[in-house]
């Protein structure tokens, strides 16, 4: 099985207040099979370098958007990134097949509890449903869409000492993706990746490394 190269596009406009995302990003950055990009750092003025971003997409197999959920969507720069980088003729349209068969996934944090993101909760929709524009973007560009890796109640993760747990899951997930052990087909019915891969994600990382 071929090892996959991961491109992590991280968008967080106020990282000095971040409690979960920055730690996740730093962890990802420390892995040699992940190219971790801080979009707000690279383009503080939103002057996104289209060529550079497209080149980066071409040289990776898995694309991850990592962001805190802002108004049920991505922070502004990720939208800007899509508008600019996913050009006609590159990502879609005639000859626009540069992203074909890549794996696409979102890693999000949400302030609300998991039960809020249900039809009967106050957010009325699941995160999977809310992220449908991205899912469709992935589909139109020929990528395979994975359900999101989601951390709920992120504002209290630190106080409730859940940070270590989330980071372990995140680390495992990145490892699994790298080893190509997560299949888009099998996960299609899931709301989040967390629920489907609980056992694998909660495995101890040290023992995993040995096996």
């Amino acid at each position, binding site marked *: 099985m071929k090892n996959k190269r991961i491109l992590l596009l991280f968008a967080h406009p106020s990282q000095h207040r971040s409690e979960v995302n920055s730690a996740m990003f730093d962890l990802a950055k420390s892995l040699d099979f992940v190219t971790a990009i801080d979009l707000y750092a690279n383009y503080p*003025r939103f*002057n996104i*370098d*289209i*060529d550079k971003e497209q080149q980066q997409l071409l040289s990776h197999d898995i694309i991850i958007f990592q962001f805190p959920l802002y108004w049920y969507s991505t922070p502004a720069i990720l939208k800007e990134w899509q*508008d*600019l980088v996913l*050009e*006609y003729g590159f990502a*879609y*349209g*005639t000859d626009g097949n540069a992203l074909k068969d890549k794996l696409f996934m979102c890693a999000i944090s949400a302030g609300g509890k998991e039960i809020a993101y249900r039809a009967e909760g106050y957010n009325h929709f699941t995160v999977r449903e809310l992220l449908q524009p991205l899912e469709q973007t992935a589909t*139109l560009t020929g990528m395979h869409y994975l359900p999101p890796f989601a951390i709920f109640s992120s504002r209290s993760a630190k106080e409730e000492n859940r940070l270590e747990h989330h980071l372990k899951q995140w680390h495992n997930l990145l490892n699994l993706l790298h080893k190509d052990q997560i299949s888009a087909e099998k996960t299609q019915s899931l709301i989040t990746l967390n629920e489907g891969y609980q056992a694998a994600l909660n495995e101890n990382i040290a023992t995993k490394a040995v096996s």
Partner: protein
Amino acid sequence: MTIYFVQAFIYLVAAVIAVPLAKKLGLGSVLGYLIAGVVIGPITGIVGQETVTIQHFAEFGVVMMLFLVGLELEPKMLWQMRNRLLGLGGLQVVITTAVTAGIALILKQPWTVALAIGLVFSLSSTAIVLQTFNEKGLSKTEGSKNAFSVLLMQDIAVIPMLAFIPMLALPELVDAAQHAKSAAEHHEELSLVAGLPTWAYALAILGSISGVIILGHFLSRPLFHYVASSGLREIFVATALLLVVGIAALMSLVGLSPALGTFLAGVVLANSEFRHELESNIEPFKGLLLGLFFITVGAGINFAILSENMLLIITLTLSVMLIKASVLWLLAVIFKIKNSDRWLFSLSLAQAGEFGFVLLSFTMQNNVIPDPIASLLQLVVALSMFLTPLLFIVFEKVILPRYQAKSNQGEYDTIDEEGCVIIAGIGRFGQIVNRLLVANGVKTIVLDHEAGQVENLRKVNVKSYFGDATRPDLLHTAGIEHARLLVIAIDNKEEAKELTHYVKKNFPQVKVLARAFDKGHSYELKAAGADYTVNETYHSALELSGEAMTSLGFHPFAVEHKKTTFAQTESSASELLFDKWKHGSEGERFDLDYRKLFIELEESIKQAMAVDRADKHSSDERGWTPPPKGYESKFEE
């Protein structure tokens, strides 16, 4: 010829050995020169009588110094000083003269001699005092500013004194001198105004002064432009020297003080764009000549007379200094000069000065003071000058620390904290940098060599320090070795470059962010090691040009992206050009003036933009491009 070489060699050797040594021992360069003079003169006897001639020549250093002082003083500032100048300076001259003359009278001197002695000792040493202020970084303190007003007033007062002294001539001395006409003094050799009637004399003086002002104002600029455009540095130096020498000559010819004339010319040129260039050109000459002057003072000490009248001379010297210091102290109280500034003011001006020498030899020529007394007094003058550096040391080591401990208001410009960012230059540019950093809780140390600027900033509670950031010792006190960043926003191009070079060489861990004047300068800064440079006008000009496009009807958001593209192309083209520039030889690099660089860069921007457009890849046209019409039919297949 050979003898000149040998002499020059002796003086230089003495200076080269003694001055750094004195500096290292914390004695200051002036004392170093004086000691060097004593060693080669009275102690070893290597140099002899010629020191007197050399001294007259070296007095020209004082003239140059006043020119430089004038350059630092804008007319506006001079006008603001008028009260201190006339009040403080005038009173100092009058009271000191009166008290000294009174004591001379008590010592049974005739009144004419007493008055002449009073005049001689009312003057202080501009050369030593200003040089020491500069060296010790005291130039911008209240005490030194007041001292400067007094010195300036004294220099002005020399003119009427020179006119007045011949009237004090002692009849019996005049008779004796009738036959043996003494050798004329250097500034008495030639005169345009000798034998003119009074009205013509006044007219000549007025004409010369207004000539200096008018020519300085209107003619100097085109002249310097013309010379500067030749690109020959030495010719510029020659022009600067021409200016100073020419004015000094003119002033001497009409019987005015050359120092005053060049001071005036300096003030006139203070606003000129060539000010810094002039300063840096004259500076080394001034330094050397002043050094030479001090050496000759040391060498001229006559040990024979000194040892014969040791006790008398020492007593006289100490009394003179005590009287002068007391008068100054009194004035400091009246004029509300406080704390350590009062000490600085009183101690720094307690000596007699080089104009004292001039007046003494003038009184001898004019038969005012008998020779034996005059040569005794010359020693007093010299000794008091010799003691001045010691007084400065006392001030620095004993008095200043006491006041520093008392006041933690930062009233004195000793840097009492270290910041992680040092900002050199707090003009319009540095201020913005400082404001953003301070507003975000970054500790900054701000250095500027312009007194007014720092004063203004202090009024709005921005902590800043007087001082020339290009001086290694000041950088050291500012804590350069612990700083993370150095922001260079000083006005002097050359100094900015040298500062960059110095810091990157000695403290490579400090990141240097430098403000450049133009493209050429930014390249020079980069070559000197600057980590980041920005042209001072670049961003504001880009903003304005964007506003221009918006005003013309371009969409504001589209304009924003045109600007971005421009900036990107510019910066990449600029980097390319920098590489080329860097690899050019020294000579070629010198030829690349701003205009040439600009044309080259502009060409490369055009080329880059043309290529992009042809490829339809210009990023400003590329963003948010809608898909072609009818593209969606494909998806429905």
